[in-house]
Structure formats: structure tokens, C-alpha cells
């Protein structure tokens, strides 16, 4: 079983029995999708909610909207059926309890909302999520079972 690593503002696909992971999600979101029949999945690590708000938006994996579109394109090319795809997401934490409404305070929440909106627009059911709060998360997707592991400092392993 190989492990495929996804960096920040990055995405990739994974086929069972391999596992795909991204380490230390903070305010970013890890979006996992998979097809339970062909056991083909993928993971995106997005940083910002909306590419249309940005002048420099050439890195499509950086944004929830373009990142999810590209993730779906890649997993379907690798053998997943779009109609069977399901999703799980994690991350979107508020790492610092900054007061007020500045960008850093609520970007995690906006990332989570934008990710859910995009999945819903594409008709991909969101089966589970572990978002918000104030701590970092490492996630692992196992396309063989669809299990999405969430690891955080000083907390028990959570499987969604």
C-alpha cells in the first residue's frame, strides 16, 4: 500500500489499496471524494474560498471552487463515476482567536461554506465533515473503505 501526499494548494487522486493524505490542515480545507464501487478517490487541500475574487488565480488547486472542479475531473478521468461520487471534508479551523471580522478570523469558516456550496452545486453528497473549532488536523482517505481519518494534537483519532 502506497501513501500519496498532497501539499498545500495541491490535489491528487488515489486508488485502493493506496492511501492519500494531507498533513496539518489549519484554516485550509481537505476535500475527499471517492467512488465506493471503483474505489477511486482523491483529495484536495484548498486555501481560499473563491477564485473569482482574486486577481492572481492561476493555481486552481488553491481555491474551493476551481479546486473541487479539478478534483472531480481528475478522479473521473482515473475511473470514478461522477454519479456515484461522495464527499467528506475536514479543516477550516480558526487557529487564532482574533477578535473582529478581519480575513484571518473567519477564513476557515468561509472555506468550509464555499466547499459545501461547490459540492452541492455539482450534486455530490457530503457524507460527513469535521470542520471549524481551533485546532489543526491531519487527514487520510482510504478509498478501499471510504474511511476518512482525522488526527489532531492531543486528541483521539476520529474516523468519519
Amino acid at each position, binding site marked *: 500500500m502506497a501513501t500519496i501526499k498532497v*501539499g*498545500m*494548494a*495541491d490535489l491528487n487522486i488515489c486508488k485502493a489499496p493506496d492511501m492519500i493524505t494531507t*498533513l*496539518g*490542515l*489549519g*484554516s*485550509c480545507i481537505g476535500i475527499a471524494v471517492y467512488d465506493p464501487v471503483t474505489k477511486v478517490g482523491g483529495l484536495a487541500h484548498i*486555501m*481560499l474560498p473563491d477564485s473569482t475574487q*482574486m*486577481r*492572481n488565480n*492561476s*493555481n486552481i488547486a*488553491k481555491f474551493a471552487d476551481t479546486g473541487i472542479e479539478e478534483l472531480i475531473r481528475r478522479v473521473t478521468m482515473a475511473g470514478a463515476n461522477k454519479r456515484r461520487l461522495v464527499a467528506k471534508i475536514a479543516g477550516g*479551523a480558526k*487557529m*487564532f*482567536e*482574533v477578535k473582529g471580522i*478581519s*480575513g*484571518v478570523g473567519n*477564513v476557515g469558516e468561509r472555506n468550509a461554506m464555499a466547499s459545501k456550496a461547490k459540492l452541492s452545486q455539482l450534486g455530490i453528497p457530503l457524507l460527513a465533515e469535521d470542520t471549524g473549532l*481551533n*485546532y*489543526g*488536523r*491531519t487527514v487520510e482517505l482510504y478509498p478501499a473503505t471510504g474511511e476518512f481519518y482525522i488526527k489532531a*494534537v492531543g486528541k483521539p483519532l476520529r474516523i468519519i
Partner: protein
Amino acid sequence: MAKFSLDQVNDMYFDVLKEIGNIGAGNATTAISHMLNIKVNMEVPSVKFLTFQELPTAISAEEETVVGIYLEVESDIGGSMMFLLKMESAQYLVNRLMGRPDDYAEEFNEMDLSAIKEIGNIISGSYLSALSSMTNMVITASVPYLSIDMAAAILSVPAIQFGQYGDNALLIQTEFGDDVKIQGFFILMPDVESYDKILTSLGIAL
């Protein structure tokens, strides 16, 4: 629309940041030295220009627990600043400050966390006052906010701020200490308009 993009950063800007880092770290070292009542030496800071792929591992492995102190920067320029310390460095500084033996390694209590915030405050304040005197601008900082968590998760905060106008981030690494070397990392995140203001006030043409 601001003209500045970090993706077009030049050598001169690099040197200026390095110099600010140098003076700031010098100020910070003096402050720390008084606070801990020890003799503190300082190395020349290094300025690194990193992509998002490199940033999460710039100070440690992605999942290693580190200390992050975050401050909002206000007045003539807007933005934020972050100071990061490795766990062992934070533990060492706290032990010194609390008069404990160097090998004490219990989990931080409330008092320790306040002490860490104060260290971050002093160091960041020293850095900002260097920037302020070089640019002749009034620069103030908010109260410090603290997070002790995975390095990559903490670094997602500056990454997202830089991510709004480019694909790179600037990291300033300083090293100070007596026998034990403390490694500290600064990330200054002015908003886009403030970059222009800083460079203009330093007489650097874009």
C-alpha cells in the same frame, strides 16, 4: 490597485527586509537579554522566499508541534505578523523566565502561556519598531494571540494571507541565545496596499 506582487520580489527588497530583520532581531535580543538576565548573542538573520509547497516544512516537519504568536498590525500600515518558536525553544525560554531547571518539561500552565505571549509580544514589538523607525511610519500591534499546534496548521494562516496576492511567502529566520541557541521565525504579512507604502517610504521604486 496595488502594484506590488511578491512573485516579482527583487534583490533590493530582499536586502531591505534582511536589514529590518537584523535591526529588529537586535532590538529583540536586547529585550530578551534584559528579561532573562542572561547574555544573548545573535546570528545574522536569513530571509527566505518560499512557495506554498515549501512553507509548511520551512521550520519543522508538518506535524511537529510548534508555538505560533499572531498579532494584527495597525495604524499607518495594515496587516499582520507571526512569530514562531520550536517547542524546545519555547520550553527553554519559559524555564529561564520562571526560574526552573533547564530540563523541566511539564505541559505549559496558564502562567507559562502568558509568558510565551509576552515573549512573542516583546520580540514582535522589537521587529515592528525597527520597521517603524526605518520607514518613519507609525506602526502598532494588537494584543498577541497564541496557538500551539501542528506547524503546517499554524503556517496555513500566513499562507492564506500571502495566498490572496501570490504563490509565495517570505520567512525571516533569526537565531539567538547563550549556550542554547533559540531559533525564532518571523513572518510579516502587510496587506497589499501596505507593501507599496513600505517600499515607497524606503525609497524603493517598484
